[in-house]
């Protein structure tokens, strides 16, 4: 009897274990990439032949060793107040203006450029954020070139030896590592965008546009000089910016991580402007969502407060609103900022790790919003 019972118990346990196993197996993770084999399949090519320069060095933007990014004549370094987060990559920005050409000052939106102007943005990781002399690895150099009244994006990928960068259209994923300001070694898979992904962000009313060089973003001390002079004023002094009265009379974008430059709300708005508004605006790629995050958007519902999602799909994370005042944990904003899932994360492209410092700022901002005032 007792033996029989034990046998029965054993069988039962085995059956239960089997059920447990099979039911676990059923919930396969659909996100796992299967293995693909390489195969030699010839494609009939119908691709455009471009006359774009093949190497970055062909442009002559920099003198001496290319990787030093030492600007030649007519190439002007610049910086912006609140940049787009790009997986902790740092950026060295330059404007190239053909000799004698000027930028036309615009109080709102980017400066106006003439044909021949080129915006140059180098993405790099310092080997050690604590030590500027430890060197850096430049990953890519993105160009926006103005020709025949239109902007065209081109991208150049740096070689291992850092001697030059080569024209690339299709993008690439590459492993990068660096030591951060706390001395921790960080590693991630950096995604170089393909040509169409460039266009996705640099899009206003279906035209390609620059994003960074706006009056409010440029309105700061000129960092490339010891001298204490405002960047906009300096460009005016150099004779490459026309139409500016004084920088002082212009809007100034707060620096997202500098508490002296604005309140939490102001800095959060600056952060959202730089990281989201290129798509989330009335002109951007995400206009159909009805969420507008430009710095000067004052309609709280359009900014996401108690706004239900329109096209979020699973990006809503079962939350009802983009922002629930006082409750970051119930806000879709936070859900999407702390996710790395390509179907959920925001921004959709250009980020593969969570920007913790940005998340902290947005947490503070949403916590500080008071429900009753909406």
């Amino acid at each position: 009897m007792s033996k029989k019972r034990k046998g029965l118990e054993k069988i039962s346990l085995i059956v239960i274990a089997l059920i447990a196993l099979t039911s676990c197996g059923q919930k396969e993770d659909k996100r796992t990439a299967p293995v693909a084999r390489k195969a030699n399949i010839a494609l009939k090519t119908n691709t455009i032949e471009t006359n774009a320069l093949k190497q970055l060095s062909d442009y002559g933007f920099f003198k001496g060793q290319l990787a030093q990014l030492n600007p030649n004549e007519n190439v002007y370094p610049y910086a912006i107040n609140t940049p787009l987060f790009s997986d902790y990559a740092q950026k060295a920005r330059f404007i190239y203006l053909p000799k004698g050409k000027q930028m036309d000052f615009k109080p709102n939106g980017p400066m106006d450029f003439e044909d021949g102007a080129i915006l140059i943005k180098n993405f790099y990781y310092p080997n050690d954020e604590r030590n500027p002399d430890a060197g850096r690895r430049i990953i890519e150099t993105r160009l926006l070139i103005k020709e025949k009244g239109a902007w065209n994006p081109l991208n150049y990928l740096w070689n291992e030896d850092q001697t030059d960068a080569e024209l690339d259209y299709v993008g690439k994923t590459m492993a990068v590592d660096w030591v951060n300001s706390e001395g921790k070694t960080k590693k991630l898979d950096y995604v170089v965008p393909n040509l169409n992904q460039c266009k996705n962000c640099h899009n206003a009313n279906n035209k390609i546009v620059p994003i960074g060089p706006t009056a409010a973003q440029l309105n700061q001390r000129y960092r490339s000089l010891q001298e204490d002079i405002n960047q906009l004023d300096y460009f005016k002094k150099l004779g490459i910016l026309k139409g500016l009265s004084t920088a002082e009379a212009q809007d100034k974008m707060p620096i997202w991580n500098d508490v002296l430059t604005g309140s939490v709300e102001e800095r959060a708005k600056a952060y959202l402007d730089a990281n989201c508004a290129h798509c989330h605006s009335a002109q951007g790629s995400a206009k159909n969502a009805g969420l507008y995050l430009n710095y000067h958007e004052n309609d709280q519902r359009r900014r996401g407060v108690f706004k239900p999602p329109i096209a979020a799909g699973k990006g809503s994370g079962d939350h009802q609103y983009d922002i629930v005042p006082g409750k970051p944990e119930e806000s879709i904003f936070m859900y999407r900022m702390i996710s790395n899932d390509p179907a959920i994360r925001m921004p959709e492209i250009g980020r593969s790790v969570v920007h913790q410092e940005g998340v902290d700022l947005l947490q503070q901002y949403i916590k500080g919003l008071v429900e009753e005032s909406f």
Partner: protein
Amino acid sequence: MKKRLIFLFVFILVVAVYFLQRESLPTYSPSRDYIDLEAELVEQFILAKDSSVIELPAGHFLFSQSLSLDNKSHLTVKGQGMDKTVLSFKGQSSGAEGIKITNSQNIVLEDFAIEDAVGDNLKISDSDSVVMRRIRSAWTGEVSVQNGAYALYPVLSSNVLIEECEAIGSSDAGIYVGQSKNVIIRNNKAFYNVAGIESENSTNVEIYGNEAYENTSGLLIFNLPELTVYGSNVNAHHNKIYNNNLTNFAVKGSIVSAVPKGAGVIIMATKDVKFHNNIIEDHKTVNLAVVSYEIFAADEDELGQETLASEAQARGLRAIESDYKEDESYNPYPGRVSIHDNTFSNANFLPTFSNEFGLLWLLKNKASIPDIAYDGIISPDGSLQDDEHRLCVRNNSNASFVYLDASHDFEGFTSDRTPFDCKLNE
């Protein structure tokens, strides 16, 4: 002995629970042998010449990133057939879509399959003159909330033709036309989706010859608030919509997560709708419903069993009111809707009790599932006879009809079709 009985009891319970919970969710599992031709094909797409053809070879091609076409014109992407050429985005690490087409004109996509994108399988926006022909767009495996949202998704586009395509396993809508103009959706199949076919905020849409089955809901004709574009003028005919009773597996918070399973067709807040010569069969909630945005947006969870009518109604309305204030250009009521010459039947005797409509039929309609239900919510100062709100229902074999009178706590609930026996735009 007692111990043994308890053990046996637990054992049986575990087995029983296991089999009961194993709700039979449908599964689409084609066999695949993935090939990596990613870099070459990505380049073909990005650098495609205008007025050319991208020929996709036979094979199952796996991608870790989206394929995209931007600012192209007169371009054809052609595979070797939906069973032979498969573009799979399973486990993709970059981009949310499978194929994304933007700012393009005169684009033809035909004869291939798209699978398992993390977001939408095929999204086309801000484009004109687009054809999707014999495209099978699917998520493989058992249907799941992990599946992407839209299988075929033209949005903010014009002159769109979707024909002989298949949409399978979308966690939102299979064939989903949003905020577009001049659209034909014909001879397609949609199954295992939350919504099989959905026309959302689109104008001049003709939907015919399609089959939608085994979705949560077969066909949605929706007009939603707070979008850049509103839609009207939808003509749906000669479709077969049957057995859409699939458990809703959409993400909560999405609009389709509020669609009750077993709703064959829902016409919501859309003006100038013709719905005729269709076959609608075997739905456990309702074969066809004509509703305002108000009743639809009332959250299911708030409609408890005891608070069937007034409370839920009040809550639903309150929740939505803010929308109207914000969005004056939106009209939340359906109108000039003509439903005629359709064939309705239902093999289900009892409605599902998984949603408030089933319970409403139990209390108010002798537990019988109506073929056609109209919520009767109209603008506060309007009347049912206004041209703006007109609903005509005639000559639908022996279709049963209910008028819910939802704006008066269902007081005027009736199955009398007489006030709606009229002809409109036929």
